[in-house]
């Protein structure tokens, strides 16, 4: 008979050992999955490390792949901190890309110093508005935000597809081959975001914006009244109500903030990477769902999201570079999922002490310390 005892406080070594152990288990299970499908697990892993990080130019590509995950990861972490499950990072990023590419196309001819900030603002505003739909429904009509944000993902991709493939909108390239084969209209070359060359690798403008957002969110959650309110409302909504906190407004603000961050990711996708609205690529990329993995692995800490997004970006980048018959597309997602599942399961060992109970010890009541009574 095994018995779980809630730990009163976590020893320091555990908070390092448990995540590392979880990652090791995830890699082990992943290796079994790879081996079962008839491929060499060790070779697969070493190719991932090589193409994701160590080979020439790999780190630049990894940072590019990490940028959208950084934004969606921050978006998920922001909302999840208050127990608001925004699964809509995907849709908010897509709508952000719609807004940013729209701004870039409309402002053709104006100076880049005006257009680039305008693209960022448009991306963030569209993302915030998209999340705002779910926020208003959740805050005032009590509608489950998990399902609404998810449904909005499908609506967002249909909207972007309509703009490029289903209509003759501003977003569609209507000249030359674009008439025959629908594709997004490119933003003016001058509006493409600049990047910084560090010698061995280049860092895109979007990645810097993402780091700035991570720092701003970290500070906001740590040392502002807004951050404090979100913590109280998340942990103890009734206490927050008695303290006179405006729960509805905070939900709206937080979800809009979360959506704005994801929308910035869309602006970065247009400005840094693709330079046009590409609904097909955005629909297949799955940035929003990967962002949830990033946020969970980073334990919702905005600064940790930066590091985790680089790791996940490396994985995604390697996946794209290696994709082929012996490296199917779903492998990266499978490894991400395994990392997530193992990390979640591993938490048990950090939170509980595992004891083997002697005969007749099944009835021992373990007093939980005050405040630790409820999970999560």
């Amino acid at each position, binding site marked *: 008979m095994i018995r779980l005892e809630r730990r009163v406080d976590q020893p320091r070594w555990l908070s390092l050992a448990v995540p590392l152990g979880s990652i090791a288990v995830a890699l082990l299970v992943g290796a079994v999955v790879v081996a079962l499908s008839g491929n060499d697990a060790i070779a697969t892993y070493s190719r991932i490390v090589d193409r994701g990080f160590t080979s020439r130019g790999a780190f630049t590509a990894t940072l590019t792949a990490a940028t959208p995950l950084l934004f969606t990861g921050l978006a998920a972490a922001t909302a999840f901190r208050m127990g608001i499950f925004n699964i809509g990072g995907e849709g908010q990023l897509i709508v952000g890309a719609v807004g940013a590419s729209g701004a870039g196309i409309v402002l053709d001819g104006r100076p880049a110093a005006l257009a680039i900030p305008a693209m960022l603002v448009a991306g963030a505003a569209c993302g915030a508005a998209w999340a705002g739909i779910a926020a208003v429904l959740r805050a005032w009509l009590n509608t489950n935000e998990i*399902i609404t944000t*998810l449904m909005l993902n499908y609506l967002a991709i249909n909207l972007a*597809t309509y703009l490029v493939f289903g209509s003759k909108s501003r977003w569609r390239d209507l000249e030359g081959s674009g008439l025959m084969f629908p594709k997004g209209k490119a933003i003016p070359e001058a509006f493409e975001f600049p990047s910084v060359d560090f010698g061995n690798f280049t860092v895109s403008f979007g990645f810097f914006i993402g780091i700035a957002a991570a720092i701003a969110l970290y500070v906001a959650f740590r040392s502002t009244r807004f951050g404090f309110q979100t913590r109280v409302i998340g942990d103890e909504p009734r206490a927050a109500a008695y303290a006179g906190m405006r729960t509805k407004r905070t939900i709206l603000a937080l979800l809009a903030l979360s959506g704005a961050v994801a929308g910035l990711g869309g602006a970065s996708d247009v400005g840094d990477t693709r330079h046009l609205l590409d609904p097909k690529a955005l*629909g297949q990329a799955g940035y929003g769902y990967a962002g949830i993995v990033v946020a969970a692995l980073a334990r919702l800490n905005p600064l940790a999201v930066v590091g985790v997004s680089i790791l996940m970006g490396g994985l995604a980048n390697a996946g794209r570079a290696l994709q082929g018959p012996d490296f199917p597309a*779903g492998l990266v*997602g499978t490894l*991400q*999922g395994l990392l997530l599942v193992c990390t979640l399961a591993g938490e048990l060992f950090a939170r509980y002490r595992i004891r083997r109970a002697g005969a007749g010890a099944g009835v021992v009541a373990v007093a939980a310390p005050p405040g630790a009574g*409820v*999970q999560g």
Partner: protein
Amino acid sequence: MIASTALVQVATVLAQAGDGASSALPVASTGGGVNSNLLIVIFASAIFYGTPLLLAALGEMLTERSGVLNLGVEGMMLMGAVAACWTSLHAGGSGWMVVTQAMLAAVVVGGLTAALHAVLVLTFRVEQIVSGLAITILAGAAGLSSYLAASLDLASSPIPHRLEPIHVGGLADLPVAGPLLFDHNLLTYLSWVLVAVLWWYLFRSRRGLHLRAVGESPATADAMGIDVVRTRYVHTIAGGGLAGLAGAFYPLAIIPLWSDGLTGGRGWIALALVIFGFWRPELILVGAYLFGAFSSLGLTLQARNVEVSTQLLDSLPYLMTIVVLVFVSTGWARRRLGAPAALGTPYEREAR
């Protein structure tokens, strides 16, 4: 997305071949007259496209009745679809044998995927929402289901054996009732039986009473001598089996070729349906067919050459899910027939 484009292709073929010439869609081929009336066609295809939603939502209802929320429906459906596809391609025997084996495989694999959620939530005490999301991310359109499908080479050829409509005697030719009631495949008939059985189980059987007790007040159930953890394990896995069966409907009855993410978010709609149906099988049936109608409306209209934007029609089921959810979650509906009181909360005997 991929699934819906494939559906559009099916619709185009349909339009070229004339009304009701496909064996996949339950459209009466001989009834003529009344039975090719647009309204009848819409109702019949609402039942057809509503069947996987109904199966998945019934499964999730069972799980949630025990107090466990499983957001992994989409992932479980995709895993079930992979299992069904593979079995249909590789199992031997007559057509019916193969299809039956494919459905069983889907149930088993869906149940196994749900078992992972059960282990995480009940044994490892992971938060239910986060664990369910993890299941969908792990098994979902960009994860394990896609990896398995690629490794097992499912997308290279269409599956040979499929669920064909069973014509009950000559009843399928009856006006109105024929296409609505007697022109469906095995899974649709099975889902009707399931609605009745689950209703009886929940509200008329001792075990069902125990299940509801566990979902409403696990501490009370525990004091009554009901094994809370065991009940939750059993119903979570059973719910996953039904989700897997729902996933099998896509390759076996709708599009006989694997494509990643072929369920197109229907698992999430099933989750919304449980709320819409107030955790009652008979109301979930009504909801499933309502959403089935929205899923098929586009195809039906396109097959009749009505000019409507594809993207708008594709958006309908998702849009309606939001609208319906808003109505259900406001005021009057919430006061009656609510969710199981312990839904989403863990039960730890020590923490009482």
